[in-house]
């Protein structure tokens, strides 16, 4: 059974008074331990899909089924409880955290909210989470703004896996990072996926990264799916005009990986 099934999803906004579809008739599914990439030019609706799947905004039409359950039917406390299973990692790891927070507090929030560990047990769990993402447990006492961007994104991943989710939405999660750090973070994500069988909805405009981590890819154009399929196949032989344009805009792809 798929982790996430999205059917005929639509979200309309108004631009200059006229309604336009930011997301239009989008359907896809993601299986356990699978990475589905969503690519597309700026403004094609990638982040809107992420927010819809996370129930941060409400769709105008369509269905979202999560582990066989109608996600859109949930509200209030039941929705909040379900949120443990669908987590997110943002692009800007600094903006993603309360500027006053410490690393410990950021990781304490999900554990406390979902009653995952007793108060006495939480410091130990926080240390374990930090170690799981390759950070020193001593980092817990530091303020969020005192650690490096790469460390911060690791903390964001630690926070996302704290509630043992089956799906993590990553919206440009490595785009803001240095190339060297980016490789390490992708490595960590792949490792977590292998160990915990987490599915990723991996949003990126970088086809090189997508090719390295994604099993399948969906290419968006102005809110609609232009094409989809096996990530390597689509990137090697794009069929849609937008797919060809995206591949052409990424020249190093050809030499990069076999």
């Amino acid at each position, binding site marked *: 059974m798929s982790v996430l099934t999205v059917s005929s999803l639509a979200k309309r906004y108004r631009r200059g008074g006229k309604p336009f579809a930011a997301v239009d008739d989008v359907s896809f599914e993601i299986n356990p331990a699978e990475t589905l990439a969503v690519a597309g030019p700026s403004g094609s609706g990638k982040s809107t899909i992420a927010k819809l799947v996370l129930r941060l905004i409400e769709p105008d039409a369509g269905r979202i089924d999560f582990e066989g359950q109608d996600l859109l039917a949930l509200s209030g406390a039941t929705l909040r409880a379900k949120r443990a299973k669908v987590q997110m990692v943002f692009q800007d790891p600094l903006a993603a*955290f309360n500027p*006053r927070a410490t690393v410990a507090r950021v990781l304490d*929030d999900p554990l406390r*909210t979902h009653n995952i560990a007793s108060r006495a047990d939480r410091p130990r769990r926080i240390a374990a989470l930090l170690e799981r993402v390759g950070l020193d447990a001593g980092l817990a006492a530091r303020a969020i703004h005192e650690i490096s961007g790469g460390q911060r994104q690791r903390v964001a991943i630690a926070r996302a896996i704290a*509630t043992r989710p089956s799906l993590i939405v990553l919206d440009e999660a490595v785009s803001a990072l240095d190339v060297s750090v980016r490789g390490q973070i992708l490595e960590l994500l792949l490792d977590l996926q292998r160990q915990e069988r987490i599915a990723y909805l991996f949003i990126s405009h970088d086809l090189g990264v997508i090719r390295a981590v994604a099993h399948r890819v969906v290419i968006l154009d102005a809110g609609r799916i232009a094409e989809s399929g096996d990530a390597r196949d689509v990137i090697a032989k794009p069929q849609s005009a937008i797919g060809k344009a995206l591949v052409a805009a990424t020249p190093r792809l050809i030499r990069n990986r076999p």
Partner: protein
Amino acid sequence: MNWLRHFFRTPEAVAGALILALLAAMALAAPLLFPGDPQAIAGPALLPPFQDWSLPLGTDRLGRDVLAELFHGARTSLAVGLAAAAAALLIGAVVGTLAGFAGGLIDEALMRITDAFQTVPSFLLALAFVSIVGPSLGVVVAAITLGAWTGPARVARAEVLSIRERDYVAGARVIGMHPLEIAFREVLPNALPPVLALSSVIVAAAILTEAALSFLGLGDPNRVTWGGMISEGRTVLRTAPFLSIVPGVALVLTVLGVYLAGEGVVESTAVRRSLS
């Protein structure tokens, strides 16, 4: 602690801080230096200042010690000013946060209420409230708060409106945090700096309003207040002007001190923020 250094570099802020320190010292020392009832008769009536060194500022129409009254009045002014400002900031921050964070109907309703309170001049509001409920220290504080919370509410709401769009608020929702916890634990503390920047103006206005209420005879009758002293002195303004001048000057200095110190804090924190 860096901003403290910036704070003490501006002479106005230092002057404000000194005045406030003096005022606080007066308020705290009042029951020690003048342990008796400041409203009790201490000597002959209308003794001018600097005549009798046991009554340095002389006595009023009823023979009460003016210096003792001044000290005890500082206590009332400071207590009322701080309590009313704290209440106004608290209520304003909570109302503004709820309105800005909840949006929709809740926002609409809360902002209409805020409008309603803001249209009535705050002094009239306080006057009406005290005349209906009756004068006591708590009622005076409540009456002043009634007209003072709307400014903080608006500022808090505006700040919350911008903060609630930040990623970290979405992050808190994704975590599954309760909306009230997001509003008050994640958003409110980050919306506070511009709200707190209003506090000096609110404290100063509260002290003045309290004085004005007392002047009109609507202060707590069991407390010495500067406004009450000015009002009493008015009846003998020609023969004993110092009875009005002494508390009047104290009032002006206090408001000035609060204002200067407040400006100093705002400025030095602004410096700190632009440096970081």
